């Protein structure tokens, strides 16, 4: 379904701020798999998702969806295949437009936008029906500007918008990180529900060890722009939050080992 082949990305190359955010990432997603991505701050998780979504182009490597090479496709073209929810609740919605306008915009993700009225009765009714299932009472506030909603309500709507037209791939970048625990639970519940119902191929970044252990059928750990752990199937199902923390420590230990080992080699051979 999704193939990332030898993906490399360096920000600000040749300057003092040079950051090698992706250093040869390689993986393949099966259809309908739900993959959790974890890793420390700055390890390159968001960069990986942004590269797949097309926010920038890779320096090297390839990205394929359903066998199609989309490496040089601009972001808006990839949107036909990809639904996204961002970490920042402000990023996924247009604050000065109404709930209804935001939703009908999403109902034409990746499709031609004509000179027909955007809000058509049947579409709005169907959207209202779906919004009702969120249980937030937002179906009665379709005329409110979305900027007046709470972060949790916005993320719930953004998730709905990203999945209204079934995406080939759903990208979730810490989409509950900015929410209070109760709203976060609610959005996670909605995420589980829609991913299961629509059999969505999903990449979800999280810092919550609980979410990492309890959600998804595969787990990838990213460190310094590389994939350092990859668990699937029964191994993934057995993982507990404590195991994950132990893995973090282990990765960090090898990290510290590396510079010393390099030093040792240098003193011996140079």
């Amino acid at each position, binding site marked *: 379904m999704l193939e990332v082949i030898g993906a490399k990305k360096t920000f600000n190359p040749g300057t003092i701020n040079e950051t090698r955010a992706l250093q040869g990432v390689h993986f393949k997603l099966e259809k309908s798999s739900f993959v959790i991505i974890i890793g420390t701050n700055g390890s390159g998780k968001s960069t990986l998702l942004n590269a797949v*979504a097309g926010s920038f182009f890779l320096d090297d490597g390839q990205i394929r969806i359903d066998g199609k090479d989309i490496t040089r496709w*601009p*972001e*808006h*073209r990839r*949107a*036909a295949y*990809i639904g*996204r929810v*961002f970490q920042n609740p*402000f*990023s*996924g*919605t*247009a*604050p*000065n*437009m109404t709930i209804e*306008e*935001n939703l*009908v*915009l*999403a109902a*034409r*993700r*990746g*499709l031609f*936008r*004509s*000179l*027909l*009225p*955007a*809000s058509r009765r049947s579409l709005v009714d169907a959207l209202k029906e779906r919004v009702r299932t969120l249980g937030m009472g937002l179906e009665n506030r379709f005329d409110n500007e979305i900027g007046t909603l709470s972060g949790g309500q916005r993320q719930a709507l953004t998730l709905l*918008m*990203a999945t209204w037209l079934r995406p080939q791939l759903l990208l979730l970048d810490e989409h509950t990180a900015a929410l209070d625990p109760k709203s976060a639970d609610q959005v996670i519940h909605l995420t589980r529900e829609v991913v299961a119902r629509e059999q969505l191929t999903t990449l979800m970044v999280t810092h919550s060890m609980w979410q990492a252990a309890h959600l998804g059928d595969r787990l990838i750990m990213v460190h310094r722009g590389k994939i350092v752990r990859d668990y699937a199937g029964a191994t993934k199902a057995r993982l507990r939050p404590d195991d994950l923390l132990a893995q973090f420590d282990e990765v960090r230990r090898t990290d510290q080992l590396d510079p010393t080992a390099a030093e040792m080699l240098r003193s011996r051979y140079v």
Partner: protein
Amino acid sequence: MNLLLGSLTIGLILSLLALGVYIAFRIFGMADITADGSLTLGGAVTAVLLLKGTDPVLATLAGCLSGAAAGMLTGILHTRFGIHSLLSGILMMTALYSINLWVMGRSNLPLLSVANLTDAGERLANLMIGPQKTMMLMGWEVTCRDIGILLATFAWVCLTAVLLFFFFKTELGTAMRATGDNPQMIRALGVNTGNMIVLGLALSNGLVALSGALLAQFQGFADVQMGIGMIVWGVASVIIGESLVRTRRLGLAITGAIMGAVLFRLLLAIALRFGLNPNNLKLITAIFVFFALVSPALLDSLRKRWGGTKYA
């Protein structure tokens, strides 16, 4: 009375400018100074075509389209070449100054002797009130021609406003508004934001040029200077409109921009009548816009200082 009619008509003509500026300034958050050049361009192209004997409707349409092309170029400079939006507008405005001179061949073209759209206004009046030259309106004697032109302009402005409102409710129009509101979000929904900006600036400057085309015909000449400072004028109208309707909601904001343009023109006419030196006009306009821009923040801070913590 005739002065009032004239001011109303010019106010309505300039409300098309205000609508154009509204699109760039409020939908995309850009101060697109191309407007100064495209207003003149609209007037110049229309004037030249009228002098060549082109049908007034076609000449006006051509003026409008030339402005749209200018706006499109500004958009391309900004989105394809990554030049800052303000600088793109300045480049285009500067280039247009020479282009306008080239189109016109000299700095001023009188239009009084050629058939133009104002004659259509006169015909409209004759159709409605009969063939007489003058009529009584609230005790004043006015020419039917002036009334006809005013009504025709009013009708056209209303039609434009309604079309614009419905455009911004279409699939394309909502995508355009979202581009100004949250480009990241609308890109993730599959919209090429660069194209939206190019299209939006074309629409904006098309309206501005239409305003210039009508203005040239109404005042009876096109002048290479006629666009100078018009962006400020448009911004002033939009801001006055917003303070009148007290919302940024689409329908009311559009109505507000039109009301703002007319009101602003009337205020200036009154000020000029009571002895304001026309040379100071642009200075006064700039000072006025300054206060209009800072007054919301100013009012807020005053309220905080003297109004206690009521709003905190």
